[in-house]
């Protein structure tokens, strides 16, 4: 489920948080690039553990991170990392809008996307991404149509999930490419339509599985992938575009693509994908939030059934209680987690990466993602601090 394409799904993307934050972008007095140079660094938001995109362990750093490093270097900037839980597309928007970072890699330069994320812009592509056909070792055919009744694996809530449904395909739903690959290993499924970068990486690194990724896919599943940035910072966009052209010409970009097994997707009819390069007019009203779908999406990522809650409660006691207090009631020396300003995803990111310099441990090594989610769900349903001293 960790991929950026939910954002362009058939279901309207929720922009509740964004609508609340929206304010007119003032024309920049000082150019963004000047400001960054003064600070010396550009800040990249990336998932702390989402290869081939990024990895805070830097072993390897990930495709996005290496491209960003090349770009920063050529802009004569250092690079700061802000590790976030990026497994949902709209995280990127949030992080950029709230100035957590300056760039967020791997956003589709796509009209539909940019219409949803009105205050964002996306640079030229540093690779062509989208959804690729992934085939198991024993898959008999290269034509997706041949799997129409047998079933095609998709990452739940992504574009193919909806499009294949519309086209009358039998779908098999999984959370993430990794789960799809497990299913292929177990012989549950032979073909999938999944995020191309992850698929390429799996084929590249898990060579024993004999996975195959097709570089041809339908046009509708192909997206030019660029750097996401704030729309008001056009000078930064132009500078990055220049550097990207340079990197492409020098062959450095294709070198990196090879290193990470990036599959360059081509449309089946041979015509190049449509690119939305023109800044879209800023409209006054942002997209209407679709609360129902927001709820469904949240529930899919952070299940709040009784069992998850109970697990969360127990894990909270094991891992968090000693600093944040029983049932989240802080005694005043550590933050009260119930007052945390942020959603489930923000909290997930804090718990995973920690704030080591301020005494908040990083739990990535000690808790699985599911465990962290269970804890987040538990914390998010705790009674508010105002009720602490009410008589029971």
């Amino acid at each position, binding site marked *: 489920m960790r991929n950026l394409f939910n954002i362009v799904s058939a279901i309207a993307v929720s922009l509740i948080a964004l609508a609340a934050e929206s304010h007119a972008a003032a024309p920049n007095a000082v150019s963004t690039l000047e400001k960054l140079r003064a600070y010396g660094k550009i800040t990249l938001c990336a998932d702390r553990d989402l290869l081939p995109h990024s990895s805070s362990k830097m072993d390897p750093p990930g495709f996005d991170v290496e491209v960003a490093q090349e770009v920063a270097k050529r802009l004569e900037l250092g690079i700061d990392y802000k590790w976030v839980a990026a497994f949902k597309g709209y995280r990127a928007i949030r992080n950029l809008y709230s100035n957590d970072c300056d760039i967020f890699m791997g956003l589709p330069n796509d009209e539909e996307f940019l219409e949803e994320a009105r205050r964002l812009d996306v640079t030229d592509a540093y690779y062509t991404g989208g959804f690729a056909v992934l085939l198991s070792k024993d898959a008999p055919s290269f034509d997706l149509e041949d799997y129409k009744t047998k079933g095609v694996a998709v990452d739940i809530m992504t574009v193919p999930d909806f499009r294949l449904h519309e086209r009358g395909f039998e779908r098999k739903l999984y959370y993430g490419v990794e789960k799809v690959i497990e299913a292929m290993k177990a012989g549950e499924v032979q073909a999938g339509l999944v995020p191309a970068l992850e698929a390429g990486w799996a084929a590249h690194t898990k060579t024993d599985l004999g996975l195959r990724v097709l570089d041809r896919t339908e046009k509708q599943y192909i997206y030019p992938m660029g750097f996401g940035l704030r729309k008001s910072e056009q000078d930064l966009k132009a500078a990055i575009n220049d550097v990207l052209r340079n990197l492409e010409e020098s062959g450095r970009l294709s070198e990196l693509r090879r290193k990470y097994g990036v599959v360059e997707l081509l449309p089946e009819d041979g015509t190049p994908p449509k690119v939305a390069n023109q800044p879209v007019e800023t409209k006054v009203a942002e997209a209407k939030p679709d609360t129902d779908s927001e709820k469904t999406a949240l529930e899919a990522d952070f299940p709040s059934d009784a069992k998850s809650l109970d697990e969360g409660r127990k894990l909270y006691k*094991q891992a968090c209680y*000693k600093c*944040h*207090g*029983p049932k989240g009631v802080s005694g*005043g*020396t*550590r933050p009260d987690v119930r007052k945390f300003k942020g959603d489930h995803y923000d909290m997930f990111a804090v718990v995973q990466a920690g704030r080591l310099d301020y005494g908040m441990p990083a739990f990535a090594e000690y808790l699985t993602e599911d465990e962290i989610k269970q804890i987040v769900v538990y914390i998010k349903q705790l009674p508010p601090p105002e009720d602490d001293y009410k008589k*029971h």
Partner: protein
Amino acid sequence: MKSRWALLASAGTAALAAGFAGQVLAADWTPVTDERLLSAEKNADDWLIYGRSYSALRHSPLDQINKSNVKNLKVKFQQALGTIEGQEVTPVVNNGIMIVAVSHERIDAIDVTTGKRLWRHDIKIPNDATQFTCCGKVTRGASLYGDKVYFATLDSRLLAIDAKDGKLAWEKTLADYKAGYTLTMAPTIVKGKVMVGFSGGEFGIVGQILALDSETGNEVWKHRTIPQPGEPGYDTWGKDSAKYGGGAAWLTASYDPETNLTFWGTGNPAPWNSDMRPGDNLYSNSIIALDADTGKQKWYFQHVPNDAWDWDSMNEALLINAKIGGKDTKAVIQAHKNGFLYTFDRASGKCLQTVAFAPYDWGNLDENCNMVVKPDKRPGVGKKAYFCPSYFGGKGWAHMAYNPDNSTVFIPMTDMCVTLHHEETTYKKGTMYLGAGGEIKEPGKGGVTAVDVSANKVKWTWKHNSPLQSSSAVSTAGGLVFIGTFEGEMLALDQDTGEKLWSHMNPSGINAGTISFSAGGKQHIAVVSGYGGAFPLWAGTGVPPHIKDNVNPGATLTVYALD
């Protein structure tokens, strides 16, 4: 003829020798010899040992500040220590130089007459160290021996620091902090052996006490508090539970030169869920007497077999000579989390008497000092029990003080109850091994209870609207007890009546040890404030709202004296 310079120089030396120096030099460090340590109880000027003397009485023979003039006590200087971590330190003072360990961040040597810093040693601990400990970056202090300052770090290293310049002489890694072995105590140092006991009872460690050579850091002996297969007592741990059995001896020990015994309290067995470890779980929740030279256990007394309440016996053991039951007795007194003060015979460990010093409701002690618990006061899996005192204890780790002149002990007291239940848990490295959940519904209260040990009776209780859970008392020959509160109030109580005679507000809450010493001919009282430690982390709604609303963290050293 002498030059004016020479004249000045000699005047300076004379002043130093007479102890009226305007300025102290760290290079003037007076070696902390065995002899000085053994006679610390009589040496009124210094505070050389964590508990002031090997007997851990925390009683100062100084009487310059007394009941009639304490109202004139003033702040002599204050110094911000630059951290918001909780401060549980008892500073030590050697001939006008105070050594104060600031929460695993630094150790400062301070001239007590001027507040001037003589040196600073920065402690570097890994930034993930707090993950493996229950209660933050707390330390109870550094200890002195010879020309060195010894400090035990949270990530389980022993540092030997040159007392003259603050430079690291050597360090030794003692255990894997990522397996929960951490150090928060001020080492016990006896005859060239530096002894430390690991914290980590909430992380499934096996309690261990190490004695290390003070010159090299090499291990001289090691004592496990939890028997392993083949050792006596192993059969008191059902379901193979000794493996992560806890029993941490996490506070500084006392020492009796006559019997050559060191006295340690051991902590709770792990996990808190008692069904997971059927049996008595020896020697958790016990007082143990270990030979200082060999680490051999000479006697033990287990206060709480098969603990279901987190009633550690970690508390300090005070060595007193007093009339007990009318007879002159060399005794050990220990105040327990369960709300009772126990008196033991020092050589044999026989329990001589007990008396309650804090509100309790769980049952009673029989004539052999064994707990008889009401069935509904014992929590279990799926069985909630409400009981008092809570897991913070009628007395927490904060130390009591004993005045030999009136055979009275002054106990910092917590009055708080909890509802607790147990649940299954699995050992998971890097997280806590508890298997219990609780709720403290009513904000905690507390106070100071004075017990006449010879009479085995409570004399008075000074009551307060917050627990005195981690603030240690000092008794003085001036008839006073000094102690701080979570609110930050430094108090002087009348030893005879418990009446509050003086108080002063500190910038933050006090959860550390107050000390008394003399310098420049003047008696001083000193304390480090800085709200933190276990209480705000673990008590939840047990933290009184007025503290949550008003007390900010932030460490400050305050030194008081009469004008």
